[in-house]
């Protein structure tokens, strides 16, 4: 039966585990999957630029032996002529077996899924959801930390507008035995509805702080995001706090030896390049794991659509 993935909550905890198991198996036995999607086509519909996510999906499909139809420039597509997302989804369903779509409007992927006749994967709908980034994040934590139980996860930077952060908090909160440290300036705190829905209602402990250096020794996972200057209400606060959100070797010196540092990328200056040499830096592995999770998801959805 055809099924789409719009939000990470569309996948049950058991399905997430199964996807991670598949990804682990692909990593261990890539040759066994090299023909899995022979004769199948993935359409990547990107209505806004995102080289990384699009290439990750395309690499995933090629490594499964499938083919890719790519729409990378919305300006030259029928959308520029005023075609609706619903019509685009219906049309592309005639050409492809599965669709990965990124669109600047929130909810666009759901509209596509409601109208397509093939599975749709949300590759980012505005600031709303980006479930395959969360899949990459979950596999990174599971592989690098051995699981999710008992972890203290620090989320640092722009926790207000960062969709990857909201989605990760929601996904990790389903594992129960986990603690969060929310590190952000006052203006960029995690929205109250995320705290209410994902943390308070499940009794998951969390604390909030403005300074990263104060909590470094407590963390098992540090998820960095960028703090943009324009998000601050005033220059004074920005100057007071900006260095606190830049991860450098001095801050890493205070952290646990088995900490892992993650980042959804692209990085600007929030992680010093000197940290890249630290074995605890996992953000480039995270990119690789993202491709494997996309492979696992494409396999799952194509398999379900065929049954």
């Amino acid at each position, binding site marked *: 039966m055809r099924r789409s993935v719009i939000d990470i909550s569309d996948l049950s905890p058991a399905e997430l585990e199964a996807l991670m198991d598949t990804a682990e198996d692909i990593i261990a036995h890539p040759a066994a999957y090299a023909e899995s999607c022979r004769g199948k086509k993935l359409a990547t519909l990107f209505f806004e630029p995102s080289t990384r996510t699009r290439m990750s999906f395309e690499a995933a499909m090629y490594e499964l032996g499938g083919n890719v139809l790519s729409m990378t420039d919305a300006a030259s597509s029928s959308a520029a002529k005023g075609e*609706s*997302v619903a019509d685009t989804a219906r049309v592309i369903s005639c050409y492809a077996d599965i669709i990965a779509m990124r669109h600047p*409007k*929130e*909810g*666009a992927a759901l*509209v596509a899924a409601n109208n397509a006749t093939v599975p749709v994967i949300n590759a980012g709908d505005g600031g709303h959801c980006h479930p395959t980034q969360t899949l990459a994040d979950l596999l990174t934590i599971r592989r690098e930390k051995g699981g999710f139980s008992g972890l203290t996860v620090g989320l640092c930077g722009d926790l207000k507008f960062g969709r990857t952060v909201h989605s990760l908090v929601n996904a990790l909160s389903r594992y129960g035995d986990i603690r969060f440290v929310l590190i952000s300036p006052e203006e960029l705190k995690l929205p109250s509805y995320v705290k209410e*829905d994902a943390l308070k209602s499940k009794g998951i402990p969390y604390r909030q702080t403005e300074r990263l250096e104060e909590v470094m020794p407590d963390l098992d996972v540090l998820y960095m995001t960028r703090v943009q200057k324009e998000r601050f209400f005033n220059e004074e606060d920005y100057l007071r706090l900006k260095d606190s959100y830049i991860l450098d070797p001095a801050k890493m010196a205070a952290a646990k030896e088995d900490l892992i540092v993650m980042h959804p990328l692209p990085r600007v200056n929030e992680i010093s390049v000197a940290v890249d040499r630290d074995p605890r830096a996992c953000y480039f592995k995270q990119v690789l794991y993202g491709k494997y999770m996309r492979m696992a998801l494409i396999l799952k959805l194509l398999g379900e659509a065929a049954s």
Partner: protein
Amino acid sequence: MNIDSIQTGIVIDHITAGRAMRLYELLDLGSLECSVAIIQHAVSRKMGRKDIIKIDADIPVNFDVIGYVDPSATVNIIREGKLVEKREIGMPGTLVNVIKCKNPRCITSTEQELDHVFRLADRNRALYRCAYCDTAAK
């Protein structure tokens, strides 16, 4: 204050005091040509004060609108002077084209033909969220 009883029509009773005008607007009762009475802050033994709306015609009513504005309201359908049906409403699970999403980044802001769909996210807080972008209804 007396308002005549109706022979055939609808009485929306037990409306939380102060909410009748919101119902009047969302049900678009202003477009009806029949008599419509709004009684605000009427004395009620059960509720202390309540609002009542009487519609002097047997029109189709969107119960989801009533349930969204005030799930404790009741709807009485009157025919030939007799109460033929009394309905308790409750909170609807989904609202279709009852309210509009105000998030300018929502797909519904640019694709006009889409239904505006809200789902009940939290019954205790009577919280509805846009089915597309998850923005809370206000």
